[in-house]
């Protein structure tokens, strides 16, 4: 067994703007099944962070339980990490984010971890528009416990055991839009051309960036009757639009024809350029996004792409008027300003 990745890397690969090599974003060698979609998502995360020149020590990886939740072991080996209990990633992320708002929170969860046991936690983190990237590696099953249908498995989809799924599926993107996530996208592990820029946009957005990545389970749910197989997803996928993501600080080099392209500017001045085809949806309109999702579902298609962005969305800290400085950076003096300050406050209520 190859337990160790060779130490050599392509000598001509340039470092990023922050001076880091691609290998600085790698993690341990994967122990997931060969061909697992989750590994591709991991590779996309590595590339997105590398390309955005995020300093590895500025990232916190958080996860629950599942093959997907195991994934943070395989990327960003130099970042902070917390592997929580099943379905509890959102509350850990909330706590961490409240304590130190200066870090980038990257939550990785599965469809089981989020849509079943963690549904309540998911809903409330979304409602708070917590400033984080929340990735669901969605394979329609509980991979780690040998492939039971999850709550995102489509009704009628047939996995490895051969019995069709009887229950209605949950569309996590629709729920996220409904509950107030500021950024919602859906992609496919097998399409890094779409996934990498989507993750880069999600990482730049301030607020809840929810990304549902269909990520086939090669072992239990890559069967001919499964709607989460490589083959099915490739055949039934339609994109809302193609887009370019231009991060803040980067010069815009492409010329965009007027009327054909819509620019959405995020809080940090990064811009998403959406290239419109026929009948494209307005991604800043929640209603249109929900309709588009339902419409595609009716036709038996999977809608991917950036589904919804609220460029003016306010994250938990703004909503709660928390202090601009990270709580963990406040000293005793700031936290206990003394009797005079207390008296001042009390006076206000007299």
């Amino acid at each position: 067994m190859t337990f160790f990745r060779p130490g050599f890397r392509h000598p001509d690969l340039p470092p990023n703007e922050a001076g880091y090599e691609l290998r600085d974003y790698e993690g341990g060698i994967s122990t997931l099944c060969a061909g697992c979609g989750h590994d591709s998502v991991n590779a996309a995360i590595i590339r997105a962070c590398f390309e955005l020149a995020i300093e590895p020590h500025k990232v916190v990886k958080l996860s629950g339980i599942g093959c997907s939740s195991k994934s943070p072991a395989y990327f960003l080996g130099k970042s902070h990490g917390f592997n929580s209990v099943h379905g509890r990633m959102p509350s850990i992320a909330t706590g961490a984010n409240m304590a130190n708002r200066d870090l980038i929170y990257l939550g990785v969860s599965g469809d089981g971890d989020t849509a079943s046991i963690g549904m309540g936690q998911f809903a409330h983190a979304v409602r708070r528009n917590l400033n984080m990237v929340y990735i669901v590696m969605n394979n329609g099953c509980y991979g780690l416990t040998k492939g039971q249908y999850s709550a995102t498995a489509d009704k009628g989809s047939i996995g490895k055991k051969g019995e069709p799924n009887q229950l209605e599926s949950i569309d996590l993107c629709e729920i996220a839009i409904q509950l107030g996530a500021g950024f919602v996208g859906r992609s496919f592990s097998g399409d890094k051309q779409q996934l990498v820029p989507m993750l880069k946009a999600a990482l730049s957005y301030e607020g809840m960036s929810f990304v549902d990545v269909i990520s086939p389970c090669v072992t239990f749910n890559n069967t001919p009757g499964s709607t989460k197989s490589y083959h099915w997803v490739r055949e039934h996928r339609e994109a809302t639009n193609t887009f370019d993501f231009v991060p803040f600080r980067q010069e815009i080099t492409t010329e965009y024809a007027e009327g054909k392209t819509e620019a959405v500017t995020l809080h940090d001045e990064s811009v998403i350029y959406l290239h419109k085809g026929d009948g494209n949806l307005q991604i800043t309109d929640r209603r249109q996004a929900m309709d588009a999702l339902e419409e595609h579902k009716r036709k038996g298609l999977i809608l991917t792409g950036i589904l919804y962005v609220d460029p003016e969305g306010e994250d938990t800290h703004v909503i709660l008027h928390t202090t601009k400085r990270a709580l963990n950076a406040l000293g005793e003096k700031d936290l206990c300003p003394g009797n005079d300050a207390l008296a001042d406050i009390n006076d206000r209520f007299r």
Partner: protein
Amino acid sequence: MKPTDISNPEYFHKVIDCQFACPAHTPVPEYIRLISEKRYDEAYMINWVSNVFPGILGRVCDRPCEPACRRGRVEKDPVAICRLKRVAADNCSPDFTIPAAYVPNTKNGKKIALIGGGPASLTVARDLIPLGYEVDLYDDQAKGGGFMRSQVPSFRLPEKVLDKEVELILNMGVNTVFNTYVSSMKTILEKKYDAVFVGTGAPRGRDLPDLPGRKEGDAGVHLGIDWLASVVFGHVKSVGKRILVIGGGNTAMDCCRTARRLGGEDVRILVRSPREEMKASPWEIEDALHEDIPLYDNHVPKEFVVEQGKLVGMRFEKVTAEYDDQGKRKLVSTGEPLVFMACDEVLLAVGQLNAFPWIEKDLGIEFDSWGLPILGKGTFQSTLEHVFFGGDAAFGPKNIITAVAHGHEAAISIDLFLRGLPLNQRPTPSVTMAGQKMGIHDWLYDNQISEEQRQVVPTVEKVKSLKDRLIEVELGYDQEHGHTEAMRCLNCDVQTVFHVAECIECDACVDACPERCINFIENGSEEEIRTRLLAPAPELNQGLYVSDVLPTGKVMVKDENVCLHCGICAERCPTSAWEMQKFFYRSPQAGQK
């Protein structure tokens, strides 16, 4: 791009950079693996079959394989391919004998003359005797080996090592005619040989006849290669204290190092060109510098200074190299006054010439304007159909391994010719493929990449080795260091074979490959594809492995350049679309199909 035709053996052959670069195409990774398993006899055999002189070449080969080695592209130093060859030779059991397949049962009645006893002729003999040919070998020396004996100094190549490998061939039944200078090709042709092979090398040293003082100082001026031969044969036993060696090739390095051992205390190398452009191999220059021999580059010899009939020194013009738009070099004087260097003797190592004064002009053997024989492309056949040339005699001075490669090709031609077959229908290489998979994650080869750096070869103490020109400077790796060095080899012969029909385009291999070799992209022209790969692909002589079209319309493109042959792609592929297969390639030799 068209899908790569991996059924053409040259595709995967080219991936094995070292073997491809070796003129004799020695299966390098195979013998290196055998060394790592301490199977020295087998490692020696792999070499002996391909390059005939493993013990010799393991010490003095020009090693064109090493600059080509893939390891040198992922880190600083290539695998010490040459010195590992010596490990095989040093540890090979002493009773190594010619394998049974090389002992002829019956003579075929055909007789061949070999003129010159260097590596080219010896290789022809090694290849043809097993097929039943009778061979007469003529040389003006008392023993076989050619320049390997008369030129290559013993401190690099001990006589014992040379004798052993030369005798191995002579004992196959060569009729030797030593101490015989062939002064007329006509008389040889009159002996009615079925074929004649000319392997007489490039035996004439270049002089500087027009420099002022050359004639007057003659007693103190020597032609490098003649002088080296005189040292080997014991005619020259000492030199003056101050020696100037003129020239920047390997001969110059051997001259100065030999002079240091014969009493030279202030020995200097003087080269016309800048150091970076010297012809000598970098390691030979280093070895010379290590023996306290200073190197003066950009010094053009102008004059021998003779006083009272005795050479007292030389004058040099200092120059700088200037390059025109075509990159052509011109040496331009710096305008400084000429530099005088005092000396007792001068050794000229400014090049070698071919000379065939003994081949009469009216025999039908034609020469070009450079004085080199006109030969059939790849056949080494001269314009007189039963006369063949090889080694330094064919295209001018090269090296031992090139002479061996010529010998193999000439032997093929001679055999085809004497069997009445066309010379251009040559035997093809023999190729085998062997799967390396043992279990899901188990491989028949060591796929974990060693991160050891190139091992240093131990040497004899300088004070000791400078006292005696017969002491070999390098001690060679011991078994342990040999093993460590062998483990650095990336097994470039274990090929990544892609089965397009199995691939589900999951990208697992793309993500897992530590070198970013693998891509799934839209097809295009090679030039354009090279700009779209995950990692830069500027090495145009490194192949792109392109698959047929996949269900999504994309193609798989793998840049072979820095593939570590680690097999991680094959381990992470769910469908075994990637397979690791050992590709064994052996160049054809005379008598094969």
